[in-house]
């Protein structure tokens, strides 16, 4: 009954269970990426690096990756700003805040794949709610899904609506657990709320913010439902993201091997990006006193 035993007791059951579940899919994905498994040929034959070579010159795949700079970074930033603002107000803003805390959480509870269909019924250009309302106040219909800029905005709106509450909840929980002493002394010093926020609240919230942002970046990069329902990657391929491209190639057309190859590449790039981001975040947040 050493402390080593307890050390392992805590971590290992979870870690091993996770590994037990994911090890086969992961190894299988690596193996199948070197086979030629598709609609007419199932099984693990040996195709070497053919799929990898094909991927490296697949323009559609790479351009879909670059699109993520917008779809995940911008939407995550928006969600963070809005979620933080909402969390600040819900923290100790106003009297009936408890009701609004619940209300602001509701979008998170909706099923993304179903909600995307509701969004489609809102942003359909012919019979949708958005253009229907605009026409009531005499504004010409907007091409919500058939022009690049409005289509991007449409998807952003759906994503921000669905996932801002995610940020909101994590940040609110973080705010509620902040130690009170520093705020008291700031109050005694007569600091303005704005200064208190920048010099105390925000730095104290840095670790939890980083955690929330990273997990949101991971999720936002898998953006699929809203694009599938709202634009089908259109107009042209201007809203095609890796998750969408992987889905059409890998599952709809059943190019299992090629889908696995792109999935692995995506995984590698994501891990690299997140590691670099983690380093940057760690540097940036340190001088602020954490």
């Amino acid at each position, binding site marked *: 009954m050493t402390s080593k035993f307890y050390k392992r007791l805590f971590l290992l059951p979870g870690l091993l269970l996770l590994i037990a579940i994911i090890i086969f899919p992961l190894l299988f994905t690596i193996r199948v990426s070197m086979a030629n498994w598709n*609609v007419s040929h199932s099984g693990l034959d040996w195709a070497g690096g053919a799929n990898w070579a094909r991927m490296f010159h697949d323009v559609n795949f790479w351009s879909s990756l670059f699109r993520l700079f917008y779809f995940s970074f911008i939407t995550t930033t928006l969600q963070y700003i809005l979620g933080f603002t909402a969390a600040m107000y819900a923290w100790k803003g106003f009297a009936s805040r408890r009701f609004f805390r619940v209300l602001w959480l509701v979008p998170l509870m909706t099923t993304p794949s179903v909600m995307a269909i509701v969004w489609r019924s809102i942003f359909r250009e012919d019979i949708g709610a958005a253009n229907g309302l605009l026409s009531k106040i005499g504004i010409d219909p907007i091409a919500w899904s058939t022009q690049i800029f409005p289509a991007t905005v449409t998807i952003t709106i759906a994503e921000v609506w669905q996932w801002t509450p995610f940020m909101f909840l994590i940040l609110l929980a973080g705010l509620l657990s902040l130690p009170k002493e520093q705020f008291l002394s700031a109050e005694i010093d007569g600091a303005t709320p704005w200064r208190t926020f920048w010099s105390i609240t925000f730095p104290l919230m840095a670790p939890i913010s980083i955690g929330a942002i990273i997990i949101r970046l991971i999720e936002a990069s898998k953006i699929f439902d809203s694009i599938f329902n709202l634009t089908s990657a259109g107009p042209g*391929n201007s809203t095609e993201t890796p998750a969408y491209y992987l889905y059409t190639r890998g599952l709809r057309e059943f190019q299992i091997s090629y889908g696995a190859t792109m999935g692995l590449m995506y995984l590698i790039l994501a891990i690299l990006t997140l590691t670099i981001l983690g380093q940057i975040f760690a540097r940036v947040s340190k001088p602020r006193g954490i």
Partner: protein
Amino acid sequence: MQKAKKLRALAVVVPTVLIASLLSGTFTTGATAADSGMGPGPKKKAATFAVGSLIDYTKQPYTPKAYASAAKVKDGTQDCSYHNTSMKDYSGQKITVLAPPPPNMGEPMEQHGAMFAKLTGGKVIVQHVPVGDLYPKQQTAFQTGVSPWDVVVNFSNWIGDFQQYYYDIPTKYTSGNGELASMLPLYKGIYSWNGKTKFFGIDADRHFLKYRTDVIEDPAAAAFYKDKTGKTLEVPKTWAEYNLMASTFNGYKPKGQPAGTAFAGSSEITKRDDLMSTAFINRVAPYAKNPNVKTGFWFDKNMVPQVNNPGFVQGLTDFVASAKYWPQGGGNFGLSDEITSYGRGDSLFSYTWDDAWSQSNQSDSPIVGKVKAAPNPGAEKVWNSETKKWDTPAGGVNRAPYIAWGWSSSIPVASKNKQMALDFLCFFANKANHAIDLTIGRTGVNPSRTEDFTTDFWVKGLGWSTEATQSWIDTMNNYSTAKNRVFDLRVPGNGQFMGAIADGVALALAGQKTPQAALDEVAAKWVEILNTIGKDKVKAAYQNVLKLENS
């Protein structure tokens, strides 16, 4: 310490062995679904349904609204009539059906399934999945050797990908007193592969033109058209005329236009991964299907993709040009949007499946009685892929109707209860059920048998106008006797080939690429797909398509 080491070694070895066995053993060869026999089959019992009596759909175990208002039908005399089915005892047995969501096919599967269960005492379980998932769901299962279903609903253009997993339907169902005996030879051909029937033909499809009579047959509109273009207004014979009429009448106000609905030229399927490639095929067919070329529409005899030949490019150019007279949002229409858009009176024309036709003939449609059908437009020139020249067709117009895929059903080879599955499908498609499903637009069951092509049936059964019905029947008869027809690319990898088309066409429609550049890219991708799937495999399969094309 020793013990700990042993444990540690075990912790490494056991998972490794397990994983290795998973990765190697089971999956080195492609899973061939083993034939599991016909199943126990029915016991005999006394008939509970009298010969030739009336069938009242409101008295059946499951009555969706549409069936409740359907007419009563007399039972048929074929093998799978209500009477004959009621003599089969399937108690204690069950089948599972993979079906799309209701109402299209999903609803009749539930409705007839419940009745079949009542007549025979067996159980019919229906699993619904979204239409887009029918394909990956079956691929995943069959390729890994799992077959949880006894009946699957599918599309006939997948035949190249799935035929090895499907059981051959015995000839007694398609001949003699079988329920499918009167199916048109055209569709019998579509549902078979190398002479074997692979699909139980519960539906049959084609694409055709729908047009608004309050424009095309209206003297005031004709005068307007004459004034604008100097031409006579009539049903468009070519895609060029179609485009000209659609652009001229874009923004026009027809006499019967529902209040508050703007009028545009054409409602088409344009959403990339929502069947848009089928719209493209219609646009291209008459430009690229040359009756004098017998070596193929999709590939030439050396398996060189034809998808970027000038005929295809011309069709795509027309498609791109039509963007200017789509209704609001028309650049992002899936099939569902096309149907509802045309059904509420958005446009002059539409040209794909029967659904928009049924929708606009429904009693609650704002344009009921104002729509007629005609064969899809042709072209005034047609590309010859052998001489690499444009030909001028005999009579001035080349017609090439596209016999698009539709719903069909099959029985997996691996099903353990094929006899019951066959009896169910056959009951599903018996004379009475077929007749009632035809009259309900939302079932997705469309005319496919000789007796379906009589005007009387529709006028009396549904109260459609004689004139409109006649135009529709004429169109279908025209297609079933036509000599120069386009069929789907029914080869392994159909999904990949069509996916490449959808990608390219979407780029052209969005103006990101010229039609030529977009289709060149598609052709390059097709070569790549040919290589991954195997050129010989595709070539062998393509012979089946050629047989249909040249029939």
